[in-house]
């Protein structure tokens, strides 16, 4: 019945790991050929793969794991998906209903443990309710603000015969989030757009989650209005990096021009972003002179952190279509003089060239490695995943994204170990595409067991490891605000990654010389199979620009000079 429901929801692949309490479902999987099963090495990896699959396709990712440790291992992935609003359906086995509460073998209170880290979860105690619950699970995961859901299925329920109802015969769910924005609010925003002298679109992951139509409408709106567009880490690709209105990513490690535009704007249009603390910096000084509009499908995002003047609850694509129509119906008016002045200001900020760094011909600078990776892969059908840390920020700064669903990174939770399994999930969804995980060596080691999965399931993922033998971001913070006391932020016994590749049965490449970097990257790209690329980079490079914790947008650090003591004691507690 479970497999039938999955098929009815168009599931073509399941990421999972078998165990005692899910054997009946694995039996069903064995007896069919429509749904592919990717066997992982650790359940956390399964959820990240499902996330990679979901983010690169827009379809929900599906995970199947056993009870107890299978479920608890999935918790990090669930929390990651919740923070980044990724639709994932996790099915867990459970001990038989009559054993629940007896501390049975591999029993855990799965719905209890996962209640705060799922959008919703269910324990199915009656077989007749199984089909309806599975349909509801897919509905909840994918509608409104997407998120992870979990269905816990006791083993006796899996064995029992029950009545299957197809999705279209199931009782419609009462969970129906608002998708259509309030026309009065949209009209008010259109009126503000006409007069705005210094507007900015501040876009986020909600544009991507809303689907390709939202990205298309954002592009149309930006093109017609000429307003500058910046994006959060989660929203990269919704507006193309080559677009003429693009002013780069904003936030703690965002571009100078993007952050100053946010600080100095008089109209901020937040499209599917959530005023995360990595974006706002010091709340009291966040964009002090602007009117703020906020388009979000989740009412609880509105006024949570930043008070906004025009809240619009609704789906991004829906609201943008209405906004465009409303603005055009009013005569497509713009404050052209103001906009021209605003753009010349932004062009001045761009002259700072905030991503400049001191290159070297002796050692590979991580920024240089990414610039070369960008240059050599820009024209390919390319998907990028990352781990978490300095390399993640550099990847966001130096790689460009022309389309949505091409950039998969752990934003809200900041999960080290995300990128490798996520890259496998992406590759499974797009077997012919080039999938690169830009990694740091420390993050990569957290889920490196999944290389086995990549090789077994012939996912030719490229692991591009910027190896500085350090926890680079931790080291940077220790340098800047803990008196250069590098407590536990380096590794002394890293594996030889090239040999590790060999041990796993894939290709390993090591490069430490900037002169050979291009050649080495080409070797990675040309190899038909998974590659672990050990790129030995400068060990003490810092990631700039940087807005120190507790500082406003207009107090960015652009380089090492002046970075010392830049973060006060108050900022130090803010992470």
């Amino acid at each position: 019945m479970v497999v039938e429901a999955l098929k009815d929801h168009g599931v073509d692949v399941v990421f999972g790991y078998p165990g005692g309490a899910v054997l009946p479902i694995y039996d069903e999987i064995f007896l069919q050929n429509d749904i592919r099963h990717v066997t992982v090495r650790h359940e956390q990896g399964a959820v990240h793969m499902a996330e990679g699959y979901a983010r690169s396709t827009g379809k929900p990712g599906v995970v199947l794991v056993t009870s107890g440790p299978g479920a608890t291992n999935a918790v990090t992935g669930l929390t990651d998906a919740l923070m980044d609003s990724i639709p994932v359906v996790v099915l867990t086995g459970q001990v038989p209903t009559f054993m629940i509460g007896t501390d049975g073998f591999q029993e855990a209170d799965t719905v209890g443990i996962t209640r705060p880290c799922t959008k919703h979860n269910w324990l199915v105690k009656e077989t007749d309710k199984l089909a309806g619950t599975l349909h509801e699970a897919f509905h909840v995961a994918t509608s409104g603000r997407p998120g992870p859901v979990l269905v816990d299925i006791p083993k006796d329920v899996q064995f029992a015969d029950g009545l299957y109802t197809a999705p279209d015969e199931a009782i419609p769910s009462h969970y129906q989030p608002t998708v259509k924005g309030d026309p009065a609010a949209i009209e008010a925003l259109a009126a503000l757009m006409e007069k705005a002298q210094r507007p900015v679109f501040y876009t986020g992951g909600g544009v991507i989650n809303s689907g390709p139509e939202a990205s298309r409408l954002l592009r149309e709106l930006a093109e017609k209005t000429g307003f500058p567009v910046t994006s959060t880490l989660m929203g990269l690709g919704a507006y193309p990096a080559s677009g003429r209105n693009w002013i780069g990513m904003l936030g703690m490690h965002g571009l100078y021009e993007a952050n100053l535009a946010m600080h100095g704007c008089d109209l901020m249009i937040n499209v599917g972003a959530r005023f995360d603390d990595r974006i706002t910096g010091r709340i009291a000084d966040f964009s002090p002179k602007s009117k703020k509009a906020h388009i979000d499908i989740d009412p609880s995002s509105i006024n949570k952190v930043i008070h906004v003047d025009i809240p619009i609850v609704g789906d991004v694509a829906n609201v943008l279509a209405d906004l465009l129509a409303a603005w055009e119906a009013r005569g497509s008016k713009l404050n052209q003089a103001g906009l021209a002045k605003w753009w010349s200001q932004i062009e001045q900020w761009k002259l700072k060239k905030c991503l400049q760094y001191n290159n070297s011909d002796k050692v590979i600078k991580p920024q240089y490695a990414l610039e070369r990776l960008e240059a050599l892969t820009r024209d390919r059908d390319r998907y990028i995943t990352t781990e978490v840390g300095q390399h993640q920020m550099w990847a966001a700064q130096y790689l460009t994204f022309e389309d949505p669903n091409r950039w998969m990174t752990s934003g809200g939770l900041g999960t080290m170990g995300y990128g490798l399994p996520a890259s496998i999930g992406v590759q499974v969804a797009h077997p012919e595409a080039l999938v690169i995980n830009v990694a740091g060596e420390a993050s990569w080691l957290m889920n490196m067991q999944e290389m086995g999965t990549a090789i077994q399931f012939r996912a030719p993922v490229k692991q591009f490891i910027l190896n500085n033998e350090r926890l680079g971001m931790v080291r940077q913070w220790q340098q800047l605000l803990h008196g250069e006391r590098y407590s536990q932020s380096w590794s002394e016994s890293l594996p030889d990654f090239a040999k590790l590749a060999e041990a796993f049965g894939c290709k390993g490449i090591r490069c430490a010389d900037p002169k050979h970097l291009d050649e080495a990257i080409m070797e990675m790209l040309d190899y038909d199979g998974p590659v672990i690329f050990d790129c030995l980079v400068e060990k003490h490079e810092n990631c700039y620009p940087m807005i120190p914790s507790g500082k406003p947008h207009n107090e960015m650090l652009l380089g090492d000079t002046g970075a010392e003591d830049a973060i006060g004691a108050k900022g130090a507690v803010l992470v």
Partner: protein
Amino acid sequence: MSALKIKKGASSHSAYDLRDPNLEIIETHTLAVVVDNEAGVLARVIGLFAGRGYNIESLTVAEIDHKGHLSRITVVTRGTRAVIEQIKAQLGRLVPVHQVNDLTVEGPSVERELSLFKVAGTGEKRVEALRLADIFRANVVDSTLESFVFEITGTPEKIDAFADLMRPLGLTDVARTGVAALSRGG
């Protein structure tokens, strides 16, 4: 930061509320939350309060629609206005939640709480307890030669007042249901 009295969105200085959160007035609100009566729904609601650091002053839960499997949770909570708004939004996005009403701001409402008071004593004190119970329209639901159990219904304030009076008269045990509330009128 000083306590600027800037209305939301109406300021030329700032588009957001600049009032110092420490100076914010703490308000008490009664929320009525209609939920699916399914396993774990109460844990979901109180887990939300605990996880996000909100207060629960009192909480009552009971099924109100047997056929529709709906329960009504009445929760009295305290917080700044922004926090109360956030609590309502967070409750509203829970999947089994059908409706959230803030009875404190959505027009007049009635609030009632039922309590049982055990008062032990003899002689004058016993007579006085009975006399006060009569004034408060409390019923005697159990009686021995040395004790009474009173049943009293009213607003939390009335019940607090009754408790204050009973304490010197031999109050030994209290059971309170927490607030049930409904909006007035049609």
